[in-house]
Structures are given as structure tokens and as C-alpha cells.
């Protein structure tokens, strides 16, 4: 069956990377004093994993989406901050370039992203344009062979540390008036706010991206003028599968903590809530299979909008529920902010919000079923 486990060599490489590079820093990442996002991607690059979806010809691993979700889940099980850094870099940060980039753009950027030399970010959301992405106001005005970009993006994962931003900006009106641009962080007029003080995912930087008269060469427009919304939605279809994998990893990490605590307490003679463990395991297992199915659809070249929304909705609702149960089962120790269950509980919540809130996923799912 086509939702099979990814190939073994990569599986081993992923396991070794997580054991060597992620697990040792997980506690520091959760506190927010671990390595920077760029350093995480660099270390993934050293393990040959910063371009897991990028073809080998461009320095990537040439992997499938099945490989990708296995990677993200495995990282997230140890540390969700590192997982979201890598997920954004690999999916919404790199995939639009893979899917919509021309040869020139690919040759200029893919190697640097796949090697981990550069960190990629995805800039769609604005302060007044969250779930209603079409309401975005950042403008791109063409002047000869350049566009002048002005505006501000909000809640951008990697802001402040990323080297390349995929920016959605308005070249006209409505959904067909949006275009996508490859914007280098080093260009004049690009600035970022400080990382936000978030509830969780403390090791991942999230902040504002300000574009003040940034001159972007036409050669850095990704796809045709007016297809930016298509680029963004396509990126999110696949990106949501990555977030789903992150959620599965968080749920598994929370379950690991609950199982470990329950075994220890039971061996010490206490009664434990085995039913809660069973429900956590069942939901996590189902979320994993939904995620694999969605990834297999992407790999088969199928349209995945509906099934990616289902996977994201179910997996992220699951990771919040499972993490909450883990906090319950590990109480009172889990009241400490560095307890593995507490960390997962805080980290999990973001998954229901980013790359489309779960309310938006429900709109996507319902539209598919209920429209004629």
C-alpha cells in the first residue's frame, strides 16, 4: 500500500539526527534559550536533512512527503520548537520554490536552503489579514524591472533569523491580485520585530516582518503576477500535512511522558488511569494514519486540500487533547513549566492556530462536502 513507511536509510538518518542534535537541546529550546532557528536548520543540513523534499540535483535528499512527515513527527516527539522551524523551512518555505520556481530561481536559492546555509520563511499573514488571507494589504508596485514592496507581515515563523522570505503581496485587487515574491532578508528596507513572547514553542522565533520600500527584482517574482494566492494555498495544502505530523509528534511526546509516569506510579503501588492512556494512544494512532494518508496523496500527485484539512484538524485537536490528558496524568509534577507534559501542552495549542485555524479547516472541509 502506498502509505508505507518511508525508506529505511532516511529513517535511520532521521533517528540519529534527533538523538544527536535535537534531544540534547530540547529542554533549552522549550525554555527559549536554545540554539537559534538558523542553527537548527544548519544542523539538519549537516545531517543531510535540510532539503528533504528538494531533488538531489539541487543538493536535497530527494525524499517523498512520506519521508518528510516521518522526519517532522520524529523531531516533534522530542522538541516541537525544532519541528516547527524545520517544518516551515521545508514545506511552506521551500516547496513553493520547488513547485512554482523557474530554473533561475531554483538554481539561485535551492542549494542554499537544502544545505541549511539559509533559513526560509513564509510571509502571508498580516495583522488585519489572518484567516481572511485575501484581505492582505502589503503592496507590490512594479517599476520597470523591479517591484517596490511596502507593508507588514505578522506572526511570521523564523522572522529575524530567516534569510529568505516568500512574501505574498498585492499587485491588484481581490484573490487574483496577489503575487508571490522571493525576498532576501539582507535587502534594504527589510526589517523584523523582536520575537514574540509566546505561550509555547519558545525555541521558535515568531515575529513581524516589515517591508519598507523593498526593491525586489522581477526575476524574484514566484510564478506569474496574480497567482500568489494559488501559490500560498498550494503551499498550505502541503504545509498542513507537515503541521499534522508535528501534532502527531507532540501527542506522542506527551503520551510518552504519561506512559512513563503511569508505569512508575503503578510499580510503586498506585492505581493509574489506563483508560485515559488507551484513548490517548488510539487518537494518536489515528492522527498518524490520517497524516500518512494525506502525505501519500501528495506523493501520488493528488489534490490534497480536503484530506490535508482533515488531517490537520484531527491531529491538532488530538495533540491538544492528548497533551492535556498527559498534564492530568502527570499531576502534580506537570504543574512545573519545564515538565515534558507541560511543555507539550503549551506547544500543542499553536498547532490548532497556525497554517489555518481549525475553524478554517472546518470551513474547508464543509465547503467540499456541502457545496454542489
Amino acid at each position, binding site marked *: *500500500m*502506498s*502509505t508505507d513507511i518511508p525508506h529505511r536509510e532516511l529513517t535511520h538518518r532521521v533517528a540519529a539526527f534527533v538523538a544527536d542534535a535535537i534531544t540534547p537541546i530540547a529542554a533549552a529550546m522549550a525554555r527559549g534559550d536554545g540554539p537559534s532557528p538558523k542553527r537548527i536548520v544548519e544542523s539538519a543540513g549537516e545531517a543531510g536533512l535540510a532539503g528533504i523534499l528538494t531533488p538531489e540535483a539541487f543538493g536535497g535528499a530527494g525524499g517523498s512527503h512520506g519521508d518528510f512527515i516521518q522526519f517532522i513527527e520524529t523531531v516533534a516527539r522530542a522538541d516541537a520548537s525544532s519541528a516547527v522551524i524545520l517544518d516551515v523551512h521545508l514545506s511552506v518555505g521551500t516547496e513553493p520554490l520547488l513547485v512554482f520556481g523557474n530554473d533561475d530561481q531554483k538554481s539561485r536559492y535551492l542549494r542554499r536552503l537544502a544545505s541549511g546555509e539559509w533559513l526560509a520563511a513564509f510571509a502571508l499573514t498580516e495583522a488585519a489579514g489572518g484567516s481572511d488571507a485575501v484581505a492582505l494589504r502589503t503592496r507590490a508596485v512594479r517599476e520597470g524591472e523591479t517591484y517596490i514592496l511596502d507593508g507588514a507581515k505578522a506572526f511570521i515563523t523564523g522572522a529575524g533569523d530567516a534569510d529568505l522570505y516568500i512574501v505574498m503581496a498585492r499587485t491588484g485587487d481581490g484573490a487574483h491580485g496577489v503575487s508571490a515574491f522571493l525576498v532576501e532578508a539582507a535587502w534594504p528596507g527589510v526589517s523584523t520585530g523582536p520575537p514574540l513572547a509566546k505561550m509555547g514553542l519558545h525555541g521558535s522565533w515568531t515575529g513581524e516582518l516589515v517591508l519598507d520600500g523593498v526593491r525586489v527584482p522581477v526575476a524574484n517574482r514566484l510564478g506569474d503576477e496574480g497567482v500568489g494566492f494559488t501559490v500560498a494555498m498550494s503551499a498550505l495544502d502541503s504545509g498542513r500535512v507537515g503541521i499534522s505530523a508535528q501534532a502527531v509528534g507532540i501527542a506522542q511526546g506527551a503520551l510518552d511522558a504519561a*506512559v512513563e509516569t*503511569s*508505569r512508575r506510579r*503503578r510499580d510503586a503501588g498506585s492505581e*493509574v488511569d*489506563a*483508560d485515559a*492512556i*488507551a*484513548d490517548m*494512544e*488510539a*487518537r494518536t*494512532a*489515528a*492522527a498518524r*494514519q*490520517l497524516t*500518512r*494518508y494525506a502525505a*501519500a*496523496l501528495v506523493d*501520488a500527485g*493528488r489534490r490534497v486540500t480536503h*484530506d490535508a484539512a*482533515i488531517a490537520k*484538524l*484531527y491531529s491538532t485537536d488530538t495533540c491538544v487533547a492528548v497533551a492535556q490528558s498527559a498534564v492530568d496524568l502527570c499531576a502534580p509534577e506537570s504543574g512545573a513549566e519545564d515538565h515534558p507534559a507541560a511543555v507539550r501542552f503549551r506547544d500543542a495549542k499553536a498547532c490548532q492556530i497556525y497554517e489555518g485555524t481549525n*475553524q478554517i*479547516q*472546518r*470551513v474547508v*472541509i*464543509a*465547503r467540499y*462536502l*456541502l457545496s*454542489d
Partner: protein
Amino acid sequence: MDIRLNDEQTMIRDTVRDIARDRIAPRAADIDRSGEFPWDVVDLFRKHDLFALPFPPEYGGLSGSALTLNVAIEEVAKVCATSALILAVQALGGYPLMIAGNEEQKARLLPELASGAKLSAYALSEPGAGSDPAGMQTRAERHGDEYVITGSKIWITAGGIADTITVFAKTDPDERAKGVSAFVLEDAQHLKGFAANTIHGKLGIRGSNTAELHFDEVVISAANRLGEEGDGFRIAMKVLDRSRPGVAAQALGIAQGALDYAVGYAKERKQFGKAIAEFQGIQFMVADMEAQTAAARAMVYWASQLIDDKSPEVGHFAAIAKLLAADTAMKVTTDAVQILGGYGYVNEYPVERMMRDAKITQIYEGTSQIQRVVIARDLLGA
């Protein structure tokens, strides 16, 4: 086409879907109201060779693939849970033979199950031993080349109509699990000392035959024992590992059937001047029903694939599939009734039947509570 299915599985699914829609769906309400066992559905399954699905080709079957069978069960359950159960129980009754039968037993008994010439049943539960089958009281005493069986079984699906019944009985009453052995009854309804009383008044799956079985010194040949003395409990548990994804598939089909109906209704039903599908309150309910049903399907197909792959993890994922799919069926059918409002509550519409049918999937072949015990034991140790 679902990428989790191969070409043959897709073809069989489509065939069964057509049969279910054209021949079974029109019968479903009447089967429920009359409470009479639908022999016409049995004939339909025979005619289309659907009883062959659970069995391997060497014994007259089609493929023996759990995934193929369970996709077929799902399709039938979308329109009629009672009819889906006929197929699922034919498989359930065949598994003890497939798992523990010797060559002679399999060659003699399986082809007539695969053709549907004989119907089968699986008799484990007792009035005093439901979730705790090792506490069963039914005895099998050996006398020379024969066993004499005495005791009672309850909640036996197809127990009042099946020809080939696997019955579990204690050959060593001083032991619990280790004292259980398995026996196949042939031509069961005509055995001296055997009596089946059909149980009426069920909440759902009302056309299904459910019986209490009484064994008053029923004599059977020792050649009809499956495996060795004392193997019975192990056989019973291995059977359940294989059959639970089938119940899960039934639950999945019930959920999908209710969801499909609710979606169609929401698009047609107008209130406040527009289709209720345009209200976000309905949209979000439908989206959650869809996501839960998709999750149940992911687990049912995965557990079935693990059976086909002969994975050692089957028991764990079979329990998860059953737990999730049964709970999903209950939730989704309840929400479907809610979307239809008053119309959902009456039997002119199918969703109240689906809600009643869903409940049993949380109970039989191990209650949801027992599934949780199985799942947690794998993680926490015994």
C-alpha cells in the same frame, strides 16, 4: 479511487457499493421494522459470491484479504448494518477454523462457508461471562473419542440459524483461560441436546439473528476439536484480533451512511430562507463528523492492512480501530439525527435506525472498555 486500495479491492468495493445501493438499501427500513432475518440478503450475497471474501482461494474463497473484506462490510453497512453483520459473522465463524483448524477440518468445512451454502457463528459469551470469557461455565467432558458439551451461551449472532458453530467450553474447569478448548459443531441446529432461542427486542441490528444457545449433553466427535485441549482461549483471542477490524468497518459504514444522509439533507433543507448547509453551526458539525469518520477509516484500513501483512501488532491496532470506529459511529449518527431535527427522530428517515444500530458496535466483540484495557496493557504492561 482510494490510494490505500489496490485495483482488485477497488473493483470489489465498487461492485459491493452498487449491490448495496440497488438491492439492500431499499430493504433496510423494512428489515429493521420487521425484525425478521433477511434471507433474501443471504441469497444476494451467495449469488454475488460475497461470502467468499473472508476465505483464501485454496478453500473456495476469493482472496482472504482482511482489507478487501472490510471495505465490503463498510459498503454494506452504509445502507444496512444488519446486512453487513451477516457478512462479518460469516467471517467471524470461519476464523477459528482458519486459525486453528487442521487440514482435514479446513478442507471439509471452509468451502461450504465460502460459498454461503452453510452459515457460521462464534459462541464465546455466556450469561455470567461476557467481558471475562475465561470465567465461562460451559463444560466439555471427554468420553473416549467424543466430547459431551453442557452449558449455555448468549448473544450469539446467527446462533439460531447457523450450521457451523464454533463453541468454546472448559475441558478443565479448575483452570481459567488454560482450561478452555474450542469445538466446531456441524449441522448445529439439528444436534441432539442443542437448542437456540432467538432473542427479540434489540435496540438495533434488529433483523440480525441473535440467540441464546443451550447445550444439554451435546455429543460431538473429538475430531471436531480445534487445536489441542487448552488452546481455546488463545484461539478465541486471535479470532477477535482478526474480527474486530470487521466490526470497526461496520461501525465506519454506519457513520459514513449517516454522514452522507445528513449532508444531503443539509443541502436541501431550507430555514430562514436558505439551506441549513449555509449556516456555520451546521458546517462545523459536518466537518467534525467527516474528520472523525476519516480517522476511523484510516485506522480500519491500517488494522486490516496489518492483518494482510501478518504483522505482530495486529491485536493492538485492531482494538484501536474498533474503539475509534465504534465511538465515531455513535457520535456521528447522533449528530446526524441532530441535523435532521424532528425528522431525524422518526423512522421515516434512516438516521434514527443508524443511531440505534451504531450502539452495538461499542458492545460486541469486546466492549469499548475492554478495547481500552487491551490497548493500555500494550503500553503499560500487564
